């Protein structure tokens, strides 16, 4: 059962009916992620990668095709999951700790155990001493760390992340990527990581699913064979660059990027 894919997306299509006629957001997308695997979905804006994540989460209905998670078809919101959006989506009236604990409260995981777990997670991402701060008192990076802790406190089988570092500055991003790799290494969740950053995808992933622009199709799936744990300096090595280069060539060929 374990070699069976944990997340399986089979010829998934999403079409929006609009006044100007149907719009194809996703066109027969197929991909899979094994248990404990880190899979990035990489593509330009508007390739439907966020829509794909929402459908996998059961938060949007598919127009055609099938998504299964842990062997079960997804027809309603899946709950054995932690979601991190591009915005931290924190509640302004709760402290950092309160926001992390929201997930626990929703699942009736209350008491000392949940509190201890929340504190441990916050410590692991460098939020010690900021537990009682309110979102408006935190930097963008810290808010996203709170959001990450909230997605992990209930120990879900799966993490869905939609461009989680997209709104952060370059240095904070680097730190977040390193921290995320460490957390994943310790916990081995199945991760679907939506991004438009080539370096981020190669750095974090076991596999990178490269998508085409509108309508979203799977262009190619790359296995990333770099040894773990990966370091920031590794991004300058020929092995790393070989991967990013390959993706760059794909984007150039597809007209996602143009030169001259």
């Amino acid at each position: 059962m374990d070699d069976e894919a944990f997340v399986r997306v089979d010829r998934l299509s999403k079409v929006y009916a609009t006044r100007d006629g149907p719009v194809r957001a996703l066109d027969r997308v197929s991909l899979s992620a094994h248990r404990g695997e880190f899979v990035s979905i990489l593509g330009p804006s508007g390739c439907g990668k966020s829509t794909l994540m929402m459908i996998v989460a059961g938060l949007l209905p598919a127009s055609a095709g099938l998504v299964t998670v842990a062997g079960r078809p997804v027809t309603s919101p899946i709950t054995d999951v932690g979601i991190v959006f591009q915005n931290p989506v924190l509640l302004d009236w709760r402290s950092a700790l309160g926001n992390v604990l929201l997930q626990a409260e929703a699942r009736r995981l209350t008491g000392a155990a949940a509190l201890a777990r929340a504190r441990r997670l916050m410590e692991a991402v460098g939020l010690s001493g900021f537990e009682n701060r309110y979102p408006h008192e935190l930097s963008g990076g810290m808010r996203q760390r709170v959001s990450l802790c909230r997605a992990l406190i209930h120990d879900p089988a799966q993490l869905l992340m939609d461009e989680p570092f997209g709104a952060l500055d370059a240095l904070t991003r680097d730190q977040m990527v390193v921290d995320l790799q460490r957390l994943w290494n310790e916990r081995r969740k199945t991760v679907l990581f939506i991004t438009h950053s080539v370096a981020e995808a190669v750095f974090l992933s076991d596999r990178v699913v490269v998508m085409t622009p509108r309508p979203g199709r799977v262009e190619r799936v790359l296995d990333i064979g770099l040894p773990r744990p990966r370091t920031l300096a590794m991004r300058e090595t020929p092995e790393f660059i070989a991967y990013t280069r390959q993706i760059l060539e794909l984007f150039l060929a597809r007209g996602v990027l143009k030169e001259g």
Partner: protein
Amino acid sequence: MTEPLDIEAVEARLQEALVRRAVRARATAVLYPILVAAALALLWEIGSRVLHIPTFLVPAPSSVVSVLGGKAHVLVRHGWTSTQEIVLGYVLSIVVGIPLALGIYFWPPFARSVYPLLVSSQAVPKTAIAPVFVVWFGFGLLPKVLIAFLIAFFPIVINTVIGLASLEAEKIYLARSMAMGPLSTFFKIRLPHALPSIFGGLKIAITLAVVGAVVGEFVGADAGLGHLLLEANGAMDTPLLFAGLVGLTVIGVVFFLLIETAERLAIPWHVSSRTTFKGESL
């Protein structure tokens, strides 16, 4: 001669300046309005004496103050009547307005059928309805309470609906992925999110409730500050008229401050509780 730069001293100096500025800002927030009011009153007093403006036209502040002192018991009695009308009208507009807003937000057929009526009810001039209420309900408390309610409930409904509807979709997605039930989602996420907007409506409504009560008293009453204003007007007792206006202003401001305090206690996390003026925290 250049002194060696001591960063600790710079820090201490700036920190001290910040504290001093904060103290001064707090003091001036009270002092400035008082000074301006006093200066205006003084100018007015001098003007009315120098120019010999007749008291029945514009009474000097001193004569208004002497009425405030001499007829305090009358003002308090009428003020108390108005206060009752305002409070009852206001409470009624909350009790009716918020459930109405919940119905409008959560039940689209209800919204579709009630919303046009609601908007029409606001298009009708309340002053025009007031005489009808006198015919139906007489000269007592009830017609004033109803008019105060009729004017005040609308912003409560509108602001509550806006607050409920303005929640980002992502927060709802998040709640659903957390397996949070609809009740929990409402009380933990949607309602707290709507509170700042609801309080905005409550603050507008309290000032309108005062207007409503006075309108009701103008049309037909035997008590209340609005009634006192009309009486003073009929008797050309302009100082009493002004004293009545002062009384109404005090009632209005006190109620507004009460609601604002409630807001501060209920949503200390919100910007509206942290700052009132641009760049200045109070």
